[in-house]
């Protein structure tokens, strides 16, 4: 199992203002934002990313818009800096919301440039994006996935075509001359990642051999991984753990109490991230007709909860660390605790090859963040890497 450190570079000083207003996204004005404070935070967060390279962790960056939960507005911009500050870490952009980007060729150029800059260390997430990203991007939710697939196909063709130019006259994108420079180091393209929460996404990712990732709920992840494996078998290949990724909060400490405390602080990210004004949580067309029927039948606000392993419903906005551990949202404790929790989780999921490690959630201070990264990188990640070898050996 590879381990990827991940931080949204939160602007937590404004969380309270957002909670009071009932939304941390889309409509919280930037009068709540102090640039000098953010200057300090951004530089600190980038230092924390750089540390990952020293302790043998890979790195993941994402992006959100119009929100206090995530200051990263451009995954490639953040990765460009991180690429220069690291030597070994693989760099995962997870990712670019390509259905919200007006110019897929520009995405292809930026990804190719990053791959060249980093010497072929890029992993390329092409994501649908969260529902509340629709409003800031003003992209049409009713055609979101059609636009996603057209952009996806165009980006991969642009990066893998070296006898261009070619023209593209699609439903959403039109170019007369696509001929990107530079071309990427990795052939035909850096590995592609998708994110999702449904069996449908698992199936579609399997048809292309992409890595599929999901976050914060084992109950949602398992059916998606199973759908992926099933579809791969139908297509005549066996999907290994390297196609499955899972994002969770991880708190490691010298003692169990210290690990739980760190996880509790990072988990504030999970508690705040879903606090979004209701009207931006389900734009028309973003979810399937069947999902919308279920939401309407359940009544207002009833859909924002996940279930733990015993089938109890957990509200992410108010959950305790223990409840988060019961939904596989959080792994926490000593290095041994965390290793054992992830090992059991890995078994339950049928083998996952990538753990995306939320190691920063706002109020966790720099010293704690550094210790969390060091302990995880040195005492947990190497044992998780061996887990793959054991799984493979057992399978043989």
């Amino acid at each position, binding site marked *: 199992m590879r381990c990827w450190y991940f931080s949204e570079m939160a602007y937590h000083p404004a969380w309270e203002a957002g909670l009071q207003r009932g939304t941390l996204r*889309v*409509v919280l004005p930037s009068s709540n934002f102090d640039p000098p404070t953010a200057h300090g935070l951004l530089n600190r967060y980038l230092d924390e990313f750089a540390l990952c390279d020293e302790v043998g962790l890979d790195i993941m960056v994402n992006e959100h818009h119009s929100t206090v939960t995530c200051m990263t507005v451009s995954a490639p911009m953040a990765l460009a800096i991180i690429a220069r500050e690291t030597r070994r870490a693989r760099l995962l952009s997870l990712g670019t919301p390509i259905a919200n980007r007006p110019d897929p060729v520009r995405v292809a150029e930026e990804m190719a440039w990053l791959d060249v800059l980093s010497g072929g260390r890029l992993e390329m997430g092409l994501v649908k994006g969260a529902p509340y990203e629709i*409003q800031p991007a*003003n*992209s*049409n*939710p*009713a*055609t979101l996935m*059609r636009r996603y697939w057209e952009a996806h196909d165009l980006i991969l063709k642009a990066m893998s075509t070296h006898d261009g130019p070619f023209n593209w006259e699609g*439903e959403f994108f039109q170019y007369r001359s696509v001929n990107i420079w530079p071309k990427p180091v990795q052939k035909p393209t850096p590995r592609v990642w998708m994110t999702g929460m449904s069996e449908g996404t698992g199936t579609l990712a399997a048809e292309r051999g992409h890595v599929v990732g999901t976050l914060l709920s084992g109950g949602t992840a398992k059916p998606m991984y199973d759908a992926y494996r099933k579809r791969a078998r139908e297509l005549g290949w066996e999907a290994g753990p390297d196609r499955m990724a899972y994002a969770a909060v991880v708190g490691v400490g010298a003692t169990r109490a210290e690990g739980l405390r760190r996880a509790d602080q990072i988990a504030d990210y999970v508690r705040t991230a879903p606090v979004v*004004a*209701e*009207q*931006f949580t389900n*734009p*028309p*067309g973003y979810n399937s*007709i*069947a999902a*919308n*029927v279920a939401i*309407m*039948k*359940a*009544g*207002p606000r009833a859909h924002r909860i996940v279930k733990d392993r015993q089938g109890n419903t957990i509200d992410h906005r108010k959950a305790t660390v223990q409840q988060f551990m019961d939904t596989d949202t959080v792994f926490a404790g000593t290095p041994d605790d965390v290793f054992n929790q992830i090992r059991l989780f890995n078994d339950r999921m049928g083998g996952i090859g990538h753990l995306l490690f939320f190691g920063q959630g706002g109020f966790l201070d720099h010293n704690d963040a550094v210790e969390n990264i060091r302990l995880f990188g040195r005492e947990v990640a190497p044992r998780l890497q061996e887990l793959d070898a054991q799984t493979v050996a057992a399978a043989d």
Partner: protein
Amino acid sequence: MSRAISVAGVSLELEERGEGRPLLFLHPGEGLEPRREWFDLLARCYRVIAPLHPGWGNSAVPNWLSTVDDLAYLYLDLAATLMVENAVLVGACFGGWVAAEMAVRDTRQFAKLVLVDPLGIKVGGVLDRDIADMHAIPREEYMRLAWADAAKGERDLTELPEIELAAIARGREAFALFGWKPYMHNPRLKRWLHRIDVPTLLLWGERDGIVSTSYGEAWRAEIPGARMEVIPDAGHFPHWERPQDFAERLVHFVDSN
């Protein structure tokens, strides 16, 4: 009665009631709601033909059909297929936008046009919001803006059968498909409203908070000879909220010379 008809390769669901002069009614983004009183009031006087816009009924919108232009041509084809003559074209809210797009293209089969709180044109500057952003406000605020008396519009969705819920979900998706960007208007439509060459009545809910009566005045100013009447105690859907008043004004306009 309900029936399906194929027009330009699209299967349209129609609700049709009444006899006499044909009246083609194009429904709001919220849906047709043929069980409300307005429909029978109109059907007493006319042969009311009310298609469900593609997506608002039981079938998905074909991928190629994605703009209000497409709907305008589709309904011009429908009118030709049904061979309506001397007909009345009525559109409310989103349906008003579609009706106006038809009327600037071709009025051969229509003798009168009635637009009820239509969306569809841009009047103010870049920072002016002519049309309330129905998708960026809480449901309660939307109801307050869209109805003079929001209680008249409330529905308990949890009680509806799944087939109706699916139609509602599909309709919401289709409304976004056609109207998301530019938001619920065609930046060029206002320029062509001068082409409308049939007598036109604008009916406007006095307390419409989605598109105000001053927005209605802008429509009136652009359509040659158009008249505007304001319906008291009505919001964005006067045909639902004040059906008698709505029907009387419509009939008076249609039946006068």
